[in-house]
């Protein structure tokens, strides 16, 4: 009888762990039933390619959020990479070199974030918020607060964002899949990831097992900034231009994905597999809402509702976990 009970607990645990995935599938079925176009290859690719920017950013932010910090500057980093690439390309610098400089700049921003938090000891939220204002200012300075566009920089500028392989798979989607795979291996399969989750679970305990929490946080801040930079390059490429205002709503969107993700796989904690599923759900909802002809305010309301629902679930999970501890 005891066996039966543990089995029941296991099954309900599994349901809880993977509920988000079931929700995603359910949503697809519902939208597919309302509008058959939802399941067309073109639309699926559309969902994926329109979500590439936020998904790449979300992967990066996950790493920071796993350690229990937040990178408030992710939107600024995204815009910075886009602006630097565009400004340099317009000035005649080779595109690839421009991209490298942009990414390097983001890595530096990430290093500063990490330095302010881990070495000086400013709370991550405040440190990155300060940095985000500085970077925003920098973006406006180099762009003159306007949209940067040039007909001179040629096809290569839109290659990542607009080109398709084999006629229907966008290059950006391939990039996303590679990056997602890479981050997934990093956090779930490698020692780096285990340390990262350990830091997030209890950074004080890390010292006692020989893990340098500050080093892990530093790495997370840098990788996060770099991935946001990559997202910015893709963003510039998609719209064939760049403005310093690109990243203004990035953080809120990323947080929705991450919060949803925290209900999945490791319930109650941010994690990369969850982020990927969370990002999928947000984009399926957005796309589905457009397809069924929802108004803008309805989309906002639904997105807000989804985020609140996710946070509620995390809170309940955490309360239950604490009760279990007693």
């Amino acid at each position, binding site marked *: 009888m005891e066996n039966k009970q543990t089995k029941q607990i296991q099954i309900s645990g599994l349901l809880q762990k993977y509920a988000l995935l079931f929700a995603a599938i359910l949503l697809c079925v519902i939208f597919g039933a309302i509008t058959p176009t939802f399941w067309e290859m073109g639309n699926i690719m559309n969902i994926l390619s329109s979500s590439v920017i936020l998904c790449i950013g979300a992967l990066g932010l996950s790493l920071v959020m796993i350690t229990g910090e937040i990178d408030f500057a992710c939107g600024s980093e995204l815009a910075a990479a886009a602006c630097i690439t565009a400004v340099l390309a317009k000035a005649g610098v080779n595109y690839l070199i421009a991209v490298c400089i942009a990414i390097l700049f983001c890595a530096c921003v990430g290093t500063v974030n990490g330095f302010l938090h881990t070495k000086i000891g400013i709370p991550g939220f405040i440190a990155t918020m300060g940095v985000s204002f500085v970077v925003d200012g920098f973006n406006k300075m180099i762009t003159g607060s306007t949209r940067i566009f040039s007909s001179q920089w040629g096809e290569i500028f839109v290659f990542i964002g607009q080109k398709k392989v084999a006629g229907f798979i966008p290059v950006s989607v391939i990039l996303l899949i590679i990056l997602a795979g890479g981050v997934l291996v990093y956090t779930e399969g490698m020692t780096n990831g285990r340390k990262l989750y350990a830091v997030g679970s209890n950074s004080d305990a890390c*010292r006692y097992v*020989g893990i340098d929490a500050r080093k892990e946080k530093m790495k997370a801040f840098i990788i996060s900034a770099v991935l946001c930079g990559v997202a910015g390059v893709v963003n510039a490429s998609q719209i064939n231009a760049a403005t310093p205002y690109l990243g203004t709503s990035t953080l809120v969107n990323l947080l929705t994905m991450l919060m949803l993700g925290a209900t999945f796989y490791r319930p109650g904690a941010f994690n990369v597999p969850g982020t990927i599923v969370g990002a999928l759900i947000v984009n399926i909802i957005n796309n589905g809402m457009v397809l069924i002809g929802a108004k803008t305010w309805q989309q906002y309301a639904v997105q807000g509702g989804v985020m609140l629902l996710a946070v509620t679930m995390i809170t309940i999970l955490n309360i239950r976990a604490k009760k279990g501890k007693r």
Partner: protein
Amino acid sequence: MTNTAPLLSINGLTKRFTGKTAVDHVCFDIGRNEIHALIGENGAGKSTLCKMLTGAYPIDEGYIAIEGEKVEFKGPADSIAKGINMVYQERNLIGYMTAAQNICLGSENRKGIALDQKAMRERAEQIRKQLGVDIPLDVPVEKMGAGAQQLVEIMRATSIQPKLLILDEPTASLGEGEIEPFLKFVKKLTTDINISVIYITHKLEEIFAIADKVTVMADGRKTMTANMKDITPDECVKAMIRGDKIKEVVIPPMDYEKQEQRRLLEVQELTYGGQTHTVPFHVNRGEVVGFYGLVGSGRTETMEVIAGIRPSEKKEFVLDGEKITGGDSFKMIQKGVILTPELRSNGMFPSLNLVENVCTLFVNKFATSLGMIKNKESRAFTDHVLQKNGTKYTSRNQLISELSGGNIQKIIIGRSVEVDNLKLLAVDEPTAGLDLGAKSEIYLKIRKLADQLDKGVIFISSELEELIKVCNRMYVFYGGNVVKELKREEFDRTAILSYALGGVGNGEQTSQNSPQPDGQ
């Protein structure tokens, strides 16, 4: 007093949780002006019983009678109205508020809509006089010591004039020097303000010092109620543990001269927190060395510096013939020195499962050179550690926070012992909050490491009794320095306590102003 019924009578109280009876038909009476000790191992049902007395839990069966009159509590407010109040083990004080403000918290005097600070101050003063305690009322409580804070809690509890006060392990956070005055204070409470006390504790010597009666619980049932003068501590222990769960610690005789040839660690001086501390101590192979001292005496800090956990300005010591001047905890673990944390919560990753909790200490061992984790080996190793240490768990994929304190401690120590090339294990308060059975298992484990595996062990504790029971030698800390070294043959409770209080070992105490190194 015309009413001859006992103050509180507990009649067949029963509380069931899903699948488990936490309190099973418990009956006993508490007389007037009586200190009634309630003892039992963790999970014996003491807390659950008290939560029914305070109305926090509804009663499944049985009833409570106060002065012969049957009462029913719908919530804590009802219980307080009937004169039962409880002081919990955790502090419920607001740090930046003064003692007077904390005492009146929740029942503030008002002048119009504003708080009447003067009236509250007067009320607190009145309570202070009534209880005859000497603590400052206008100092923020966070600046007070643990003992004074405990008194503030009790003053608040008595401010509603209760008939019965429940104290839940009130001395758990007090240093050795603070306990005795506190016990006197509790004794005085019963006579001065005419109340009865239920005194929950793990420490037998305390109840023999002050209690009139004792009730022992085990597995949710009452196993004994007796007058203190009719029983011995051994009888209490026997009533607490049913069956023979406590194993005797045996310490093999030691040839100190021979031992000194097998030096493992030698320390003279450490500089941390802006101060140089004189800490001459050494550890040899195959012995358990105790670190004793009051809270803030530097016993923990010293070991944290050695283990590379606490930052230090200057450190220099010899480990196994090698001179060491720096290195973080990662490096020290590689060299075979590991410390388990004072707070159990600092040794575990609550949101991670058992495999991850065991293997975080060995991330690089169970991974390829590229950093890919070898899952199969990690799992096998985890099973090995869990089984070797007799850990109770349902699945290695469950979260560690679902386990009991004793089992978590088994994992923390169990994984530390597995460190490659382990030379020196330091355990800091390993038995805090554990019941007697679990404690004795830890003692045996520590002894086994020294006696059979020939490792050096440093046992840091604020419980003198357990150090006397387990250690070969002991160092006493005071004010950040080592003030005395004692061999097993020289162990003497009064002398050790006196050293720990800054005295010179003849029972005389100097003023107690040990600097408190700021705990990070």
